[in-house]
């Protein structure tokens, strides 16, 4: 069985009945913005919290008055790991490094770290970049700021 992301990395090309659409498609919005080279989060209009990545319900106040907005792609490296045994979709990339970054707004986001391992350290300033070879959320790369 080929598990190389066969079912999931597909995009819906049909017609959505927006008038009767009660779904806040935060992931689709995130994916569209990341195609434009932008990181996004959801801004809660009830309490002003911004959450990255975006979610349909505010984690602070529970409001669904949520708008997906662009956020700054700068932050610092909280933790990281270099992966030597990867899944089939990353088999040709090993070893590769992934890390969790705390953005300037305090939110956190996971991405591939495109920085030599010898230069990695806690709190290293990083900035978001995007891999044209991949689609959707998988595009995120962290580079040295």
């Amino acid at each position: 069985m080929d598990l190389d992301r066969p079912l999931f990395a597909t995009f819906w090309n049909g017609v959505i009945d927006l008038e009767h659409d009660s779904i806040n498609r935060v992931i689709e919005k995130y994916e569209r913005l990341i195609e434009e080279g932008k990181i996004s989060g959801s801004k809660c209009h009830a309490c002003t919290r911004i959450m990255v990545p975006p979610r349909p319900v505010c984690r602070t106040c529970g409001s669904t008055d949520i708008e997906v907005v662009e956020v700054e792609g700068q932050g610092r490296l909280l933790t990281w790991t270099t992966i030597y045994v990867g899944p089939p979709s990353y088999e040709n990339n090993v070893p590769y490094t992934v890390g969790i970054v705390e953005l300037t707004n305090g939110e956190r986001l996971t991405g591939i770290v495109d920085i030599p391992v010898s230069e990695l350290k806690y709190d290293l300033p990083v900035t978001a970049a995007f891999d044209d070879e991949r689609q959707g959320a998988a595009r995120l790369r962290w580079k040295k700021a």
Partner: protein
Amino acid sequence: MRDVAVIGTGMTKFGSLGRVTSRELVTAASIEAMKDAGIEPKDIDAVYIGQLSGDIFEHQMHAAPGIPDYLGLANVPATRVEAACASGGLSIMHAVMAVAGGFYDLVLAAGAEKMTNLPTAHVTEALSMCADDVFEVSLGVTFPGAFAMMARAHDKEYGTNAEMRAAVAVKNHEHALLNPKAQFQKQISIDKVLNSIMIADPLTLYDCSPITDGAAAAIVVPWEDRHKYEGIPVKVRSFAQASDTMSLHDRSDLTGFTTTKIAAQKAFRMANLEPKDIDILEIHDCFTIAEIMALEDMGFYKKGEGGRAALDGETRRDGHLPVNVSGGLKAKGHPIGATGVAQVVEIANQLRGKAGKRQVADVEIGMTQNLGGSGSTIVCHILERGD
């Protein structure tokens, strides 16, 4: 709500078991558990099975009815429970709740996984599906990777190091030497752990639990019925479950699991007990750092003390807090859906004095902690030797 007892346990050998289905494995574990309790298949009112992924590993969904099918039990309600690596613990918990609620009087709670049919890369991919597919897995995050990032955060905050993590692996391998059903009967050294191949830096091969086939089963009845059955009953003092975000990055603390804290506190409160009352523990050591973090999060050690405790031998079978005397996931093996059930089986056997060569003397109260995903599900049980 009725009090609940575990009156029978069973477990297959864990390991790479060749051409066999998880249904056959559960059948074997269940027959052992039924013999242990002195019951017949026809006595069973309902079946629960913890299983992560019969679909990916065996091309078989709808695992639950396969159990009564093979046990010759027509028409018994059968339910599969899936909560990643906590599927087994949750299978037990649902059986306990169903009996506690008075819906059934004799329930078979099992768990099984047949993982070795697939190559390692595909198993890695299947397991990683328990993390956030969009915001973690699509970026190449694996489970060893997620726990490696937590290990690095723990190292920074508390000075935990590779040697401390290795001490957990060495201890659990040593414990498994006394468990004939464990996957590994092989003594290892701290140097061996430190020098084995890197999986996800800083975690090496020997920091990680293996890929395993196996099944475990337990028989659950109302406490008031315990004397109808053979052997020493074990009382379920409490059970608790908690959930957290799918993605690690959505949590404020990367050095432990809020879910473990919450589930353990709930379990202690329900049983009216404290950490000092627990004589023996089975902890979800999918990675060495996971055992260290769990012991801290459950309140057995202060944050940052878990690694030192392992290094100092405090959590060995002969230490003051025996942890993973079965060998743990690390050395006994980790057939995903079976793991949480096998933890309860080990604690029950220890409390009933049926743990063979690895029996710990004078244990009356034991606890389990079963983890799913990167801690997105935690299930805890506290068990006590009954009379």
